[in-house]
């Protein structure tokens, strides 16, 4: 008999999550129907939540799913259904020649540059995380004792966003 430890192989899981995230992000931008795009965006966010789990931040992962997949995607779906034309036509993506290629070129160049710099700096970066991750209960004290001012600013941001969006969307009479 050969004894094998039953653990998550981090490489395989990481590659799986990264593939899901990137492919879904591409699909979110390229899908024909906006509804499919919104679903793909949700899948991409779920993949990022998986990466947060790998990074030992499970609370962040759950936050990501609850806020993005649970709330923002609902809002996006709602808006998509509100802005449909009466005859049921989606907005088409007509594009001038060369535009797509130029965008792809710039974006690819930027991404490759960042990734290249990171890879060059790779040997100087820590390759393994320090032993134990901090437990979830560390998040609350950091939130209210170290960063209380952002919390209060967040209250203003939330109220401004709520009232602003509502005032924008309401019908003028």
């Amino acid at each position, binding site marked *: 008999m050969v004894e094998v430890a*039953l*653990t*998550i192989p981090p490489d395989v899981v990481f590659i799986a999550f990264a593939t899901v995230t990137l492919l879904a992000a591409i699909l979110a931008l390229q899908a024909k129907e906006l509804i499919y795009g919104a679903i793909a965006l949700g899948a991409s966010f779920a993949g990022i939540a998986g990466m947060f*789990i790998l990074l030992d931040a*499970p*609370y962040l992962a759950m*936050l990501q799913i*609850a*806020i993005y997949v*649970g*709330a*923002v995607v*609902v*809002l996006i779906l*709602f808006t998509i*259904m*509100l802005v*449909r034309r*009466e*005859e*049921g036509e989606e907005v088409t993506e007509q594009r001038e020649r060369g535009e797509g290629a130029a965008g792809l070129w710039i974006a690819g160049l930027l991404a490759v540059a960042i990734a290249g710099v990171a890879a060059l700096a790779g040997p100087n970066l820590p390759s393994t995380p320090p032993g134990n991750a901090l437990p*979830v*209960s*560390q*998040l*609350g*004290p950091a*939130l*209210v*004792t170290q960063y*209380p001012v952002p*919390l*209060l600013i*967040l*209250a*203003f941001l*939330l*109220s401004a*966003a*709520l*009232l602003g*969006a*509502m*005032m924008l*969307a*309401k*019908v003028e*009479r």
Partner: protein
Amino acid sequence: MALNPWLAISIFALVILLFTIPLLSLPYLIVFPRRKENPFRDMPFESGQVPQGDARHRLAMQYYPFVLMFVVFDVVGMFLFAWGISFSQIPLDSSLVVLIFLVLLGAPLAYALRLALRRENW
């Protein structure tokens, strides 16, 4: 013997897939290949009326403010949970910040509700 909980959850997810994929592949395997077009059978169900127009019409705006409020309070709820787990470890005067946070959000919520519940706004 305790397994990594996330590994246990992923095994559980795979098992659910094994149980449910056969159930939902049945329409693909049995039903869809033998379908014949029948416009009367495939008509949307409207209690015997002949459907008029597109069903995916632009939906009523009046639900929109509540979805908006949900997004805002989703965020608030997640912040409150992060504070709630470690309530006993935090000195009480630090928890005052959360009280101020909620009070600051109270007035906008009341006004937003007032706007949302007035039918002529939407």
